[in-house]
């Protein structure tokens, strides 16, 4: 009977494709939007992700994220170094600046100054050039998003910039996770950054700490707080803070929430309507089957099989569509590094299941209510 049910459905291509389209559309919208949402949120933590070697971030107690930080006096570094369990601690500066390109364009950038000696604070990988270029005078390394933004279609290597009225020469391209706003990032040595960033005292944004025992970073951060009076967050905590900051301070969750809800509602509407039409068109046949001797239990299984087939194909197409979308835009800096967290396909699968269970149940009701005696009318 399952075979008959499937043939009934596929024998009506219009409705079949309508149903598959509805599910695929919902799946695509839900999966794709949730994927973008999660990846965008994670951009809030990009500053942390880009410095993979730091186990603990130490900052002024009022600082909140890598981008919302209040500067500390440089003595903070020594205080942190004095805490037992700290294997190494290096200064890290993050500041906003404006650059003037040689074409005269003005661009807001983030300047990141990394420890002169160890260069800890740079992204792990370079797209072009080596991190050693920072030892040359006035050197900066630009991130790859900055390259596509400021130098579309050309190489930035050797380009001169005017950075807060100071000379800077781009000598390398870093492979970095873009920030939430895709701001251009220029990496330079800490000592050089002090030249670029205005002000005289208190320009140390963070102290990056490597723990003697990285597994006990949490305990170390608590100890640093205790002994220095500064705020210390583990890598994971600070990444979460960055994400939370975006959740708290942007309309993103609401906007994406609305789109996802729309995907669900439109799915229910398309699938529900098409399913009901399909059942209505076939109600005589279902009635005949019931008269001939197909139990309601078997009818239920038939409709479930129809819903299951539609669900499988539609869901598959929707997820494939999302993968295709991510692939197609992977070279676009806005979508750089986007991936589909495994939970998201599960969420859309649950949504699809609910859509089909709901609409299938509605459609089924009319079949179950059909009196077998109606076949003689």
């Amino acid at each position, binding site marked *: *009977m399952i*075979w*008959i049910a499937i*043939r*009934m459905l*596929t*024998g*009506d291509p219009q409705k079949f494709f309508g149903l598959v389209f509805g599910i695929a559309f919902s799946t695509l919208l839900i999966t794709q939007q949730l994927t973008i949402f999660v990846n965008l949120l994670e951009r809030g933590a990009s500053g942390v992700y880009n410095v993979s070697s730091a186990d603990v971030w130490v900052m002024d107690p009022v600082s909140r994220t890598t981008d919302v930080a209040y500067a500390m006096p440089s003595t903070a570094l020594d205080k942190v170094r004095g805490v037992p369990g700290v294997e190494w601690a290096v200064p890290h500066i993050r500041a906003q600046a404006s650059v003037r390109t040689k074409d005269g364009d003005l661009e807001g950038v983030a300047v990141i100054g990394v420890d002169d000696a160890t260069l800890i604070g740079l992204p792990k990988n370079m797209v072009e050039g080596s991190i050693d270029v920072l030892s040359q005078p006035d050197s900066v390394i630009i991130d790859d998003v900055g390259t596509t933004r400021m130098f579309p279609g050309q190489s930035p290597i050797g380009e001169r910039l005017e950075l807060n009225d100071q000379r800077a020469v781009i000598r390398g391209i870093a492979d970095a996770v873009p920030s939430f706003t895709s701001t251009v990032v220029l990496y330079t040595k800490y000592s050089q950054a002090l030249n670029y960033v205005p002000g005289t005292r208190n320009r140390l944004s963070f102290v990056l700490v490597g723990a003697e025992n990285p597994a006990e970073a949490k305990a170390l951060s608590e100890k640093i707080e205790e002994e220095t009076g500064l705020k210390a967050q583990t890598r994971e905590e600070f990444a979460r803070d960055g994400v939370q900051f975006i959740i708290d301070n942007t309309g993103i969750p609401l906007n994406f929430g609305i789109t996802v809800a729309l995907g669900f509602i439109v799915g229910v509407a398309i699938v529900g309507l098409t399913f009901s039409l399909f059942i209505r068109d*076939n109600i*005589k*046949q279902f*009635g*005949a*089957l*019931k*008269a*001939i*001797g*197909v*139990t*309601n*239990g*078997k009818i239920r299984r038939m409709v479930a099989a129809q819903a299951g087939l539609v669900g499988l194909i539609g869901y598959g197409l929707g997820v494939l569509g999302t993968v295709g979308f991510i692939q197609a835009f992977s070279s676009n800096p806005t979508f750089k590094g986007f991936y589909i967290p495994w939970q998201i396909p599960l969420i859309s699968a649950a949504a699809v299941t609910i859509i089909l269970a709901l609409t299938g149940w509605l459609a089924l009701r009319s079949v179950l209510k059909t*009196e*077998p*005696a109606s*076949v*003689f*009318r």
Partner: protein
Amino acid sequence: MGKKMDTSAIGGCNPEAAICTRAVTRDFQAGQQTITVLHGIDLDVKAGELTFLVGESGSGKTTLISIMCGILWPTQGEVKVFGTDIYDLSDDELVEFRLNNIGFIFQQYNLIPSIDAASNAAVPLIAQGMERHEAREKAVAMLEKLNIGDQADKLPNQLSGGQQQRVAIARALVHEPRLVVCDEPTAALDAASGRRVMDLLREVAVAEDRACIIVTHDNRIFDMADRILVLEDGKVTHDGDHMPEDH
């Protein structure tokens, strides 16, 4: 759905009878009003005969045949089909009983448009759980018996109305049911085609251990019945092998 009624006061059924109804009544609710469509029908239908149920429109023919084949509960009375008190069965048992014992020929055929003639004819066997290819083979054999074996692979909409009806007849007979019911098989056909269908039904549907009941008000085929039951206003007013003179 009022189920089993007290029938102890009614005469028992002849164990030989294929179908036996005792004091069957059926009411329908029309708004506030209750209309009684069948008034105490007592009938015995024998196997091996072509039995016609005739009467004017609205006389209750379809209602009665629906009750006799287990798709419509009587308001009162007892219905036995080959000895089984069918309205004493549970819902699922009754469905199972229909699947194994009754063949239906619907006026509108109700074929499934997206499966071919043989698969349509095989539906009862498939519903019984027979493997699909085996069921199809049997269905094709039945279609051959009905002279449309060469149409087995065609979809219903590729067949003429008459061919579709034969597929519907094949579907009613493929599982060799003991009771075949048929509502107005000739209503949509011209006289000659109507007689051909009746010849066919007589040839394939009537068997020694099978009862065959045909509802009709088509007077062009009355002469083809073995037995004619006339229903008037929900009562059987004539029972014989001919139509009464005044009809």
